[in-house]
């Protein structure tokens, strides 16, 4: 697999690279950012997302905790009632930030949790206990769902679970197993999804609108469109390039440089996450987003939250020290494309560009210009009229029926 830093970047996949970084930074800081990459085959969306696994920084957890308990804030049924001393006794370990996948044919038990078969079938000491599923095990990390449209179509039960997990930040999940007590834990995971809207069963927003809206951001992938891009991609995938590349880099061992680059990312991410925790959107930009919400009648308040979170993150991964209007501008298509129609989207985009941030508020400003042809036609009205005050009450109301001579 080609490492993250060496993947070919071009206009059509740029947004996905940005989203991957933004989401990891946010997740590492403790605030999930869910996104969905939609695109036809051959856009490399899953390759990029899977390659991101290697740039994930490490997290600390209570030793051996399958729920990834943060030693400073334990949340799982085993550790949540323990004191700091007791936790210290168990110990702390470092693991890579979780990156787990849910396939479109997954079952509820695998995703949420089910009875622990290892313990149940233990010959000497069988025991009935819960084994947390993929989602609770991905706490403080990433869940990747490829072909999410198919999952939503075939498994409404898992879709409901995802809705809960993504409903709030943090979300929560219930693990149920007949005969055992129900466990309800918080989960802080970023859900990454990919789908091809063009294959069965069609785009996610037509299958389960609610789930599509839960994604803070979306990107529509484009295919590489220049000869240069494509020949680069070919070159990077050629056997000889891989060998020579490795020999050049491999002073000590092959892949030495790859590891170095990955570590660089991990360090950046940790640093960016620190900045993210401290950075707030300036008030004027927040007001600006609020005005978009009102002016364009955006239905989803999540959209505005995504704009806020996204603009801050974007400014950080671009190594800027201030969030500016252009950061908001940049994330508008990502945060809104799956929630509004294309006309409204270009109106919003062009509106900002043309008139800047200062534009006034409220209802009547969103006015469309009148259609041509409504202007005066000379002599269209031939008779004069009496004013209302001279008209008796019985003559005030005239309907099409009363006005049309039969």
């Amino acid at each position, binding site marked *: 697999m080609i490492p993250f830093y060496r993947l070919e970047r071009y*206009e059509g996949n740029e947004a996905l690279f940005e989203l991957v970084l933004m989401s990891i930074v946010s997740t590492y800081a403790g605030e999930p950012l869910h996104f969905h990459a939609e695109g*036809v085959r*051959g856009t490399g969306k899953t390759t990029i997302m899977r390659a991101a696994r290697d740039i994930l920084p490490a997290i600390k957890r209570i030793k051996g905790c399958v729920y990834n308990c943060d030693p400073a804030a334990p949340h799982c049924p085993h550790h949540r009632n323990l004191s700091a001393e007791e936790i210290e006794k168990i110990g702390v370990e470092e693991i890579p930030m979780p990156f787990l996948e849910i396939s479109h044919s997954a079952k509820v038990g695998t995703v949420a949790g*089910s*009875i622990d*078969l290892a313990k*149940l079938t233990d010959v000497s000491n069988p025991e*009935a206990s819960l084994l947390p599923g993929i989602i609770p095990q991905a706490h403080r990390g990433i869940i990747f769902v490829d072909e999410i449209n198919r999952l939503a179509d*075939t*498994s409404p*039960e898992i879709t409901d679970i995802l809705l809960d997990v993504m409903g709030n930040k943090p979300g929560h999940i219930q693990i149920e*197993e007949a*005969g055992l007590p129900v466990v309800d834990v918080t989960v802080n995971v970023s859900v990454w999804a990919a789908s091809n*809207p*063009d294959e069965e069963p*069609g785009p996610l927003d*037509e299958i389960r609108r609610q789930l599509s809206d839960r994604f803070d951001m979306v990107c529509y*992938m*484009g*295919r590489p469109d220049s000869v240069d891009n494509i020949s680069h991609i070919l070159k990077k995938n050629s056997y000889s390039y891989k060998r020579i590349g490795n020999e050049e880099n491999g002073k000590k061992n092959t892949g030495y440089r790859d590891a170095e680059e990955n570590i660089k990312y991990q360090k950046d991410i940790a640093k960016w996450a620190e900045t993210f925790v401290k950075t707030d959107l300036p008030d004027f930009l927040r007001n600006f987003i609020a005005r978009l919400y009102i*002016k364009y*009648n955006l239905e989803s308040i999540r959209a505005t939250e995504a704009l806020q979170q996204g603009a801050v993150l974007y400014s950080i991964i671009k190594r800027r020290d201030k969030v500016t209007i252009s950061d908001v501008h940049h994330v508008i*298509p990502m945060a809104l494309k799956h929630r509004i129609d*294309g006309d409204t*989207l*270009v*109106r919003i*985009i*062009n509106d900002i*560009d043309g008139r800047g941030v200062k534009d006034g508020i409220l*209802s*009547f400003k*969103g*006015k*469309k*210009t*009148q259609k*041509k*042809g*409504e*202007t*005066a*036609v000379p002599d*269209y*009205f*031939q*008779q*004069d*009229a*009496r*004013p*209302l*005050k001279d*008209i008796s009450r019985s003559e*005030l*109301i*005239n*309907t*099409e029926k009363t*006005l049309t001579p039969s």
Partner: protein
Amino acid sequence: MDRQTYVDRQTNVDKAISVGNYLNLYFGQNQGIRLGDSVVVSRKAHAKMPEKRLKGQIKILLNRDAGKTYLDFVESDQVVHIDIYHKPGEINPCDVAKAVFKAVDQYFLEKDPQLQYAEDERFKIVAGYANKIFISTNQGKGTVYDLFQNIMQPISEDEEGRDHIHMLARLNQEEYYLIYVITEAAEEVVLASGAKLAKVRNIVHGNQKQAEESFAGYIKIPWKSFKGQGATPLPAKENVNQLVLKLAEKFGGVHEIDEFLESYSTNIFKRKGIEQQKKKWGDVEHYVQQLEELDLIKNTLVGKILTKKGMQLKEFIINHKCEIESEIRRNIRKVPSGGMSGFRKLGKVEKKASCVKLTNRNKTINNLDNTWAGDLAVPETIIQARKNCFLRNDDHFTVRRKDLHYYDKKSYIPVDICLLVDASGSMAGDKRQAACYLAEHLVLTGKEKVAVVTFQERDSKVVVPFTRNHQTLSKGLATITPAGLTPLAQGIVAAVNLIKSSNVRNPMLVLITDGLPNVPLWSVDAKADALEAATYIAKNNIRLIGIGVESNKSFLEKLMDKGEGVLYLVDDLNRDNLINIVRHEKKNILQTAKMA
């Protein structure tokens, strides 16, 4: 206050309340009214009808909600639209606002004289309304609140010649009485300005023809970043994308956009005349004009041709064919709004439907009935048994009946659809496009096969045999060019034969026509032959639905009677109506099957 004034005012309050009640009644019936002589009030957009011989009429556009049209509201019925028509004259909107403000204030004072002692309260009420009423005249516009303070927005060029005061008020039903108060005050200003009020001769309710959108107004080209360094190219990309999708909506797929743009190339062999274009795509002039505004097409000595930018666009479309086609298909999959408002249904069919049962490997259920039948889910059963052994304290592994898990069953009723489309001359343009769109929507959203048969000139043609393949479908559809007469009997026979010779499940024949048959098949009577042909549909146990226009009702009713089908009458053969009708009918089949 002298007695006369008192009486006047009292009648005013009475008039206002009575008007409020009537408005409530008529708005509730989705109607507008003419208030007095010169005012039209509704919750819709209004239009003149200069194309009609009779002048002075105002059309109330039932399919254009005022709030949505003028203020980009999402929900309908939030805004009352008042137009006060006048003869030429300049009307100052600030004067109107002041009069309205005063009249509303007076009105509340009369209703509740106590208010004169509560200045703050009184101002709050009136200011509240002042923010909810918007006025636009030929001199300027703004909310009453702003205009009252002489804060006025300029009007756009096309509002300059306006011959009415255009008011929008966000009022709820209990507040409609204010409409009389507002309107009377505004009329006074017209008269005081020296202009005369104009009499609206008549009002008419109807739909606006699918408004041709002026996308040149909000789409911005060129698409290379127009803000200098550091500017992101993305927004520009969205602009181009949206433009292409607009063109696709009008012309069909990428292939047809290309065909259209070729008509403006310098290659004279590929150029299609405007009449030929119209046959296929309907009104193209509007689009050409829009593209001219966007500087993509220009006028030259040899006629209209693509500009350099226009050629770039063409190239962009070819280079991004894959993604664009995918997005076009995404749009076609969208379920239209409107529900059942655009058509009415006559008759009903009861035909048995066969259903297909599938095993759902994603879901298991505990065996609840006593049949022992079903698809046993072995892994789940073993796990359940192991768990229950433990909980039951069995000393060795056993499987009991309550441990058994089965795979769930899904069932669905496939309905393969054959569209029988009238391709006579009258179907050219929008109607042709709507029928094609329906076919594509069905293939892209369903799991069933679709076929298209057309009839025109003197014959019928299988344009697309039953298929699930979108490409096969769009290739076939692109060949439809409406022209000539309406040989309905031929069409029916061809469709029935196609269905009989294909491997289809629960076949449904959907007839789409805007005319009456005028080419006979067996006799000299085209209608009689069509009726005769319809009996074959019934004989072959094919479900039939007919979609036609109101004016052909009596013939279509007879036809459906012979074919044992259901008739849908539409005011407009547009794509939303077509899709909603077929969806409605498929839903019916499901429900009937469930009940049986």
